[in-house]
């Protein structure tokens, strides 16, 4: 069954959204600085480990093996969580998951929930669903809070406010945070302090917390959240009720698997040897932490993606965002142009697979949002061959097209020419006449669709003689 949510309603196709983003010079400056900084730091953190390539291979193998027996591991996880006093819920799509969470929050008698940063809840649009049901969600991760207060959209998996600089954040805090001082400066420490005061009140009063999960261990029913700010630890331990929404691909068989994944994730995402906070809990423990624990297992298109032999590797993703930071396209457009909570290279292969409708122009534009340079694959800690999946999805886009298009006609014609060397040579001779359009050895203007090229680049004038003509003349 196809997933729902994931993209924002009314988002234009990638080329259109990218055009708008490229015009925002402040955005480009913010992004360039942020991505280059974290890119360099990651490279240094990874270079410390002599066995990094073997770790990557192990990470990929662990996730592949978990995915190959996903049904078994999920049922083992359910049994273990239940045995330790937790309650497991199964959600087919975003609507089901949202309804479950809303029902649980109401049952707990809460009208406000504190949230740990979570991609799964962003994917299903939980905040919007909670608001519609009369419940206020409060994001407690600093960057998520900036996005939420700014009534903005996230643009990065790890750093959702990466498109904002300090001055912009100060303005958002001054405007939207009741406890913020009017004299607030853009000093990072002052900004963090303002957020800390604002959030402390929320942590101490919340009765329900909602989180995602980085991993879950089937053997013991333990759930893992890694984070940097300590806000997650507050949410996971203070409220009476904890609701965790987790994509079904997050399960691993055993603790031994975490040994590898917990090395790969922090170095790839924040360029740290270890993330500051790693919270692990198993069901409920009397007298310690939440008294009620609910685990919502979310499909939302994942089993469909799993059925695709090439595309399924996207489900290995551990949400580190190294592919975003290394992507030359992402660096220039930012995350919002992808129209999805999953931006960048991983988003370009994950979003269309979760939603499963490649006849939709926006989804169909995502696999083409790449020059296939391969920088993403090079840094992926679980070796997802993103360029290969992009190419695979492009063929599915073409297959999903109904009717004739100028592109399909051109491709068919080119294919027909290339299948026969005589036709190819005739086309070369005909094309060679284009040199008559050239001035000083270059052509600066071509009619559409060539104009998409000559808008910014010249074309070299075709030579009088192709190589094969030269070969025949001199060697034939």
């Amino acid at each position, binding site marked *: 069954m196809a997933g729902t949510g994931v993209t924002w309603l009314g988002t234009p196709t990638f080329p259109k959204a990218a055009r708008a983003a*490229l015009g925002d010079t402040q955005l480009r400056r913010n992004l360039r600085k942020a991505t280059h900084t974290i890119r360099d730091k990651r490279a240094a953190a990874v270079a410390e480990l002599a066995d990094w390539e073997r770790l990557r291979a192990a990470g990929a193998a662990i996730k592949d093996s978990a995915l190959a027996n996903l049904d078994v591991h999920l049922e083992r996880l359910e049994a273990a969580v239940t045995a330790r006093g937790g309650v497991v819920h199964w959600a087919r799509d975003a609507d089901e998951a949202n309804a479950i969470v809303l029902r649980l929050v109401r049952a707990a008698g809460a009208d406000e929930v504190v949230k740990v940063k979570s991609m799964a809840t962003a994917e299903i649009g939980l905040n919007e669903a909670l608001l519609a049901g009369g419940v206020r969600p409060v994001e407690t991760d600093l960057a998520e809070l900036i996005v939420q207060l700014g009534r903005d959209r996230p643009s990065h998996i790890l750093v959702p406010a990466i498109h904002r600089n300090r001055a912009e954040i100060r303005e958002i805090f001054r405007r939207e945070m009741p406890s913020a001082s009017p004299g607030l400066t853009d000093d990072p420490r002052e900004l963090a302090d303002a957020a800390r005061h604002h959030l402390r009140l929320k942590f101490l009063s919340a009765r329900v917390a909602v989180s995602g999960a980085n991993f879950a261990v089937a053997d013991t029913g333990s759930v893992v959240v890694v984070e940097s700010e300590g806000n997650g630890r507050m949410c996971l331990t203070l409220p009476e009720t904890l609701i965790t929404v987790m994509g079904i691909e997050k399960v691993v068989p055993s603790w031994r698997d975490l040994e590898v994944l917990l090395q790969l994730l922090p170095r790839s995402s924040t360029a740290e040897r270890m993330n500051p906070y790693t919270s692990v809990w198993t069901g409920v423990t009397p007298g310690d932490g939440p008294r009620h624990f609910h685990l919502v297992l979310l499909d939302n298109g994942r089993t469909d993606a799993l059925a695709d032999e090439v595309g399924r590797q996207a489900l290995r993703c551990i949400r580190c965002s190294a592919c975003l930071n290394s992507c030359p396209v992402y660096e220039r457009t930012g995350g919002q142009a992808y129209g999805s909570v999953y931006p960048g290279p991983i988003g370009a292969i994950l979003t269309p697979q979760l939603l499963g409708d490649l006849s939709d122009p926006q989804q169909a534009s995502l696999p083409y949002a790449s020059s296939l340079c391969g920088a993403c694959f090079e840094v992926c800690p679980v070796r997802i061959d993103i360029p290969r999946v992009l190419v695979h999805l492009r063929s599915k886009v073409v297959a999903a097209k109904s009717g004739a298009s100028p592109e399909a006609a051109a491709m068919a014609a080119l294919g027909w020419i290339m299948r026969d060397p005589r036709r*190819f040579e005739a086309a070369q001779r005909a094309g060679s006449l284009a040199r008559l359009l050239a001035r000083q050895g270059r052509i600066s203007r071509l009619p559409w669709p060539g104009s998409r090229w000559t808008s910014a680049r010249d074309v070299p004038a075709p030579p009088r*003689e192709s190589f094969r003509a030269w070969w025949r003349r001199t060697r034939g």
Partner: protein
Amino acid sequence: MRVALFATCLTDTLFPTTAIAATRLLERLGCRVEFPLDQTCCGQMHLNTGYRAEAAQLAERYAAIFAGYDAVVAPSGSCAGMVREFHPELVTTSPPRNAAARNTYELSEFLVDVLGVTDVGAYFPHRVTYHPTCHSLRMIGVGDRPLRLLSAVRGLDLIDLPEAETCCGFGGTFAVKNAEVSTAMLADKMRCVAETRAEVLTAGDNSCLMHIGGGLSRMRVGVRPVHLAEILASTEEEPWPAPA
């Protein structure tokens, strides 16, 4: 050694001097070079745009045409990458399935790994900067082979390109489907190239050189794009540009 030159459709059509240079270079190094006239295209553009069936037909042709050679040499990391990475899964009928794909080399790989040379006896008295193209770097892993070849060229002043490993924004049909993003990437690449104050920009792929060169010529930046094969073919007796 029976070596076939796979010129690639782009170089055959628009950049014959590169294929002529590759031929002369390989012959100078003792290879018997053949150019099977049935060859056309490896199918990369079709595959990467989503037209898998057309790509598979072209891959089948490639496998049949190049099956009998000891080595197939392409002056392109991108096309060699396509052949090695994707042809094995596209070709289903021509036995033995992977022979042509396995034996296909990008030029610098062939020179360094198969012929075992880094000094090819070239002479090129110019300031040169080298752009490692994405597919040569990350798909087939040529590493520093092109730089080792360039370093051994007499008279050549090799200048480091800043942010060298960043994509120039070409990406095949990406350049027209996402023209604005492509152009933004190109602008940064051109800035880095201009910073080197090199006379010549070289690379192992004419597609990327056509993209960067097309931008440089539009911006009237006086840096000439020259394929690696042409630099390596250039000698004191027959300096580049060689007469056809």
